């Protein structure tokens, strides 16, 4: 395998990992602060992608559409929090699973009724072509932009959490809820804001990934599980853990799919390698997760002491 190919796949892994991070960051905060399993997180990702596709149609501008989708999804998220999810914080995990699973069904059907099963969403024309980033490697300029957006959002998130008052409250809440309450925080409003931000991050990921993956009903289900894998690897409630976990998962998954079948062919008969390779590549991240939890049952960066 050549260095060029390796570089290309590393970039793909980075790009996927950063988008996973956007999903996982919100999920891990909701999980860590509100102790809430939200299976409907993937639905917000789907809503974000559909909104983006619609706004591209209406405005003709990809970036304006992303901004509008972000705002729209944040509103949907906050409405969801105020109307349903808020009642579930005090309930056990089973009730949360049941309720948010129900929300997935409701969201999927609502989207199907409003938009139909899928929508086209194309990358902005200016970014349609590849650029040569090193001699011999033509790389999709859109994917590079995704990486840039991912890095920018991650940096902004880091700044927001490390430096702002809301961020401080969020950190306090993630590691010790009683303390946050004791500090006299308006917990209800804080939760709504956090949920809105989580939804907005979902929308960014959904809108950016839309042109690469398909914008369709049920698109949230697969990626939701990956986001869960990420936050469990990273340690629930830890943003840093989410970042490390997301990059790990993104890179391992991408590399596995790209190189594992090839690698197996060195050791196994071609037909066997052909059959095993893709299956093994698909389960690689789950093996990674099981191994990490085996050694560190609380994930890599446990948020609670």
């Amino acid at each position, binding site marked *: 395998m050549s260095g060029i190919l390796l570089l290309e796949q590393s970039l793909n892994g980075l790009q996927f990992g950063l988008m996973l991070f956007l999903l996982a960051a919100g999920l891990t905060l909701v999980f860590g602060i509100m102790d809430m399993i939200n299976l409907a997180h993937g639905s917000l990702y789907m809503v974000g992608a559909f909104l983006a596709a619609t706004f591209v149609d209406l405005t003709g501008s990809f970036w304006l559409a992303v901004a509008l989708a972000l705002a729209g999804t944040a509103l949907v998220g906050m409405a969801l929090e105020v109307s349903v999810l808020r009642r579930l914080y005090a309930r056990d995990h089973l009730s949360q699973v049941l309720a948010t699973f129900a929300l997935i069904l409701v969201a999927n059907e609502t989207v199907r009724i409003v938009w139909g099963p899928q929508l086209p969403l194309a990358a902005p024309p200016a970014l349609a072509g590849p650029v040569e980033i090193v001699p011999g490697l033509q790389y999709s300029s859109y994917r590079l932009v995704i990486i840039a957006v991912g890095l920018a959002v991650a940096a902004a998130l880091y700044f927001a959490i490390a430096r702002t008052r809301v961020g401080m409250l969020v950190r306090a809440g993630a590691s010790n809820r009683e303390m946050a309450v004791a500090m006299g925080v308006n917990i209800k409003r804080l939760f709504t804001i956090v949920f809105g931000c989580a939804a907005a991050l979902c929308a960014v990921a959904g809108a950016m990934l839309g042109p690469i993956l398909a914008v369709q009903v049920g698109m949230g289900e697969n990626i939701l599980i990956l986001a869960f894998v990420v936050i*469990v690897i990273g340690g629930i409630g830890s943003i840093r853990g989410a970042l490390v976990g997301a990059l790990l998962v993104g890179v391992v998954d991408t590399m596995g799919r790209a190189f594992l079948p090839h690698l197996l062919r060195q050791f196994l008969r071609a037909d066997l390698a052909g059959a095993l390779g893709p299956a093994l590549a698909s389960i690689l991240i789950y093996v990674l997760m099981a191994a990490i939890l085996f050694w560190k049952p609380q994930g890599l960066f446990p948020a609670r002491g």
Partner: protein
Amino acid sequence: MRRWLPFAVLAAAAAFPLVARPLGWDFYIGFASRIMIYALAASSLNLVLGYGGMVSFGHAAFVGAGAYTVAVLMAEGVASAWVAWPLAVALAGALAAAIGAVCLRTRGVYFIMITLAFAQMIYYIAVGMRAYGGEEGLNLPTRSQLGFGLDLKDDVTFYYLVLAILAAALYALRRTVGARFGRVIEAIRENETRMDAIGFPTYRYKLVCFALGGALAGLAGALLANQNSYVNPNLLYWTQSGTLMIMVILGGVGYLYGGVLGAVALLVLEEVVSGYTIHWQLGVGAVMLAIVLFAPRGLAGLAQGRRDG
């Protein structure tokens, strides 16, 4: 639940084909079989989740393992139920024991997620089995062969077999939860630390419970493969595990008939709502949401609450 009620339901279920067949409701005989198979699968999860308190989010993997055992054996020319079904049970149980041995080291949310991850692994293994249909799945040329002049291809015969298995499994579950083992796992759910401190090796009992649940799910899978005459990886997808969990929560966690009630409720609801609209998932989701918000202890809890009050 009144003592006679389960027997009355059993009698009604036994009489159902006698009425349905002459009326030509063959569809509903198959539908009822499907409900009972899911009731079995949900009850097996109820043992793990309801009685043992282990929130396993990967139960579909064990159902799928059972189903694939039957399908693969049949593809290899072994159609006997006496070979395939016990093997399905044993394999699913062994798989559950292996997965449980790792998962039970973790707690709480981590346990939920790691069971889910293992189930996804099994799902992708099923997808990767290209010799057995891969993503497309595998058709079963016939149903398992039972001998004794019983032909499972006849839907009524199959119905009665499923009914008998479900009734036997529920009876066995009742014995188990009332026996020493059942007391132990319920007490572990209630207070695991204290169980440890009065001398119980809690990990071992939880593992046995998890493996038993998996084995019973394997039996449900073997039946499901026969019912559908078809297996595919979707049987193992995480939303299937979710559906089983929903059935248990709907029916009532830790109530003996919780799994049955939940399976009946969910599948009948799906069937009824889908008769009115193609957007039936919206209705089903809304009803589920209403139940969580307004009947926190599930349907069995609702019935009991009304009787108490």
